[in-house]
């Protein structure tokens, strides 16, 4: 098992602070690095990948600093953002070269296995230069997987993939995470992160805005009232009953749904069934309206 540890890491370029005092620990499983563009995700990944030294703080994998330590790369798989590759080589040759550089035993079969994992095995003898963007991303994945590293760092890995490829890659990452690999990927596409990341790290303007499971993060946001949408057999009466009860801050009645805002969600969640039962109203649907990663993210970014 491998853990990536960042302690008080900052990185500045001249006057611009790209990463500001970030401390995080990334262990086995899938972690999503989330943040708006320009927030410092790529900088963080570069530092974890040993391509950028932190201006202050330490970046280590299992206690060993990554900077200037090429030996560590046997255990790290990197999917860089760069699009350029060795265009004149075929996919097979390129991944094979990477396998050999990683000193993999039996590079040929490792290459085939990696290509199969990313579903590029039919295109193995085509030149990389002729590949579409999505295929190039998959080649990059193959080079990152061919030596079966314990740590995978992926910089915007879903870029350019079509929905089916994306699904496939998500499954792959999920499986790797379940097997105990440490997988960290950066993205600003929330649906992807939501589906597969157990933990998220949110970076906004170089600072760590939040970390953990996004539902728990939502619960921690006590200053934001929770929103629910409720449909029932008699919305109007239910609305009146909720207001009378006082467990919600605001109730909004439109033609077919009730939108409810409650800061004390615990109290509200317990009160609602009781109110409905006392009023003889059947609840059809109770959905948290903003427990999506999107709204969490929006709150975090807007702070």
């Amino acid at each position, binding site marked *: 098992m491998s853990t990536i540890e960042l302690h008080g890491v900052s990185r500045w370029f001249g006057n611009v602070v790209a990463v500001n005092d970030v401390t995080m620990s990334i262990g086995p499983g899938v972690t999503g690095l989330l943040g708006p563009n320009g927030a410092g995700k790529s900088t963080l990944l*570069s530092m974890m990948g040993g391509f950028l030294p932190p201006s202050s703080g330490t970046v280590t994998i299992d206690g060993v600093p990554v900077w200037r330590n*090429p030996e560590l790369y046997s255990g790290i798989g990197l999917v860089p953002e760069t699009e350029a590759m*060795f265009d004149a080589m075929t996919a097979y040759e390129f991944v094979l070269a*990477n396998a050999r*550089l990683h000193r993999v035993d039996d590079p040929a079969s490792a290459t085939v296995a990696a290509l199969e994992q990313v579903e590029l095995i039919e295109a193995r003898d085509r030149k990389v230069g002729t590949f579409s963007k999505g295929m190039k991303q998959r080649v990059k994945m193959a*080079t990152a997987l061919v030596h079966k590293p314990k740590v995978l760092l992926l910089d915007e890995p879903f870029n350019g993939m079509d929905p089916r490829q994306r699904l496939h890659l998500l499954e792959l990452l999920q499986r790797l995470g379940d097997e105990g690999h440490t997988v960290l990927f950066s993205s600003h596409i929330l649906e992807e992160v939501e589906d597969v990341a157990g933990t998220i790290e949110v970076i906004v303007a170089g600072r760590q805005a939040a970390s953990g499971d996004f539902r728990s993060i939502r619960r921690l946001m006590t200053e934001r009232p929770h929103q629910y949408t409720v449909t029932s057999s008699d919305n109007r009466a239910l609305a009146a009953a909720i207001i009378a009860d006082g467990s919600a801050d605001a109730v909004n009645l439109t033609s077919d749904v009730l939108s409810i805002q409650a800061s004390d969600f615990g109290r509200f969640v317990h009160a609602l069934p009781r109110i409905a039962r006392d009023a003889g109203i059947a609840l059809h649907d109770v959905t948290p309206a903003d427990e999506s990663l999107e709204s969490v993210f929006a709150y975090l970014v807007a702070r």
Partner: protein
Amino acid sequence: MNVVIMRLTLRALLGSRRVWILVGMAALLWIVAGLSRWGSGADVGTATGVIVNFGFGTLVPIMCLLVGTGAVAPEIEDGSIVYLLAKPVPRRTVVLSKLIVAMAVAVAFSVISIVVAAQIAGDAEGQLALSMGVASALASIAYVAVFFMIGVVSRNSIIVGLIYAMLWEGTLAGYVPGVRAVSVRQWALAPAEQIVEDNSVISIASDLPLVPAIVLLVLATVVSTIVSVQRLKVLSARVSE
């Protein structure tokens, strides 16, 4: 020495349009040599002038520049060097593997171009070909090391390399004698001068005696290599602009 890197570098150097420029340059030199032969009636003195000034003084540095920078600068520029660096391979090995290939290619191109050109232009018992062939081989090794380093260090490697090769070694050296002592061209000419010492027809002059020249060639090669390795160790994620 890493065979994979060597193979990759060889592919990159020989597989691109760059190699056609090298071939064209060799052809150009041979045409010039042919012209010289036609114009001067295969006069060895004229041939020497053409080979030393145009061939060795202009063509060989440019060939080495293209090969030396071409072995590393394009990969740094487009970021694909990450595939070589994110591997458990010591930086020193990366640099040495690339350098060996680049030097071999440069030596091959320059020596063949010069030797054949000397034969075409007019030679005296192969002395011109031998002396300038040796000079080209030695110069190529040093030039490639220096230009490789420039390729790692600078984003405008070709222009900087040419400022060195043409402006410094060429123009300035003509005006400021001291400059000549710090020039790969002069160092490499010393062994050539040795070889044709007793030859009355071929006259090659070098500013330095043999031993210091060889020492300086070795020094330049080694120091450039060391700088390249150190620089590559701290190469950060660079995005081309």
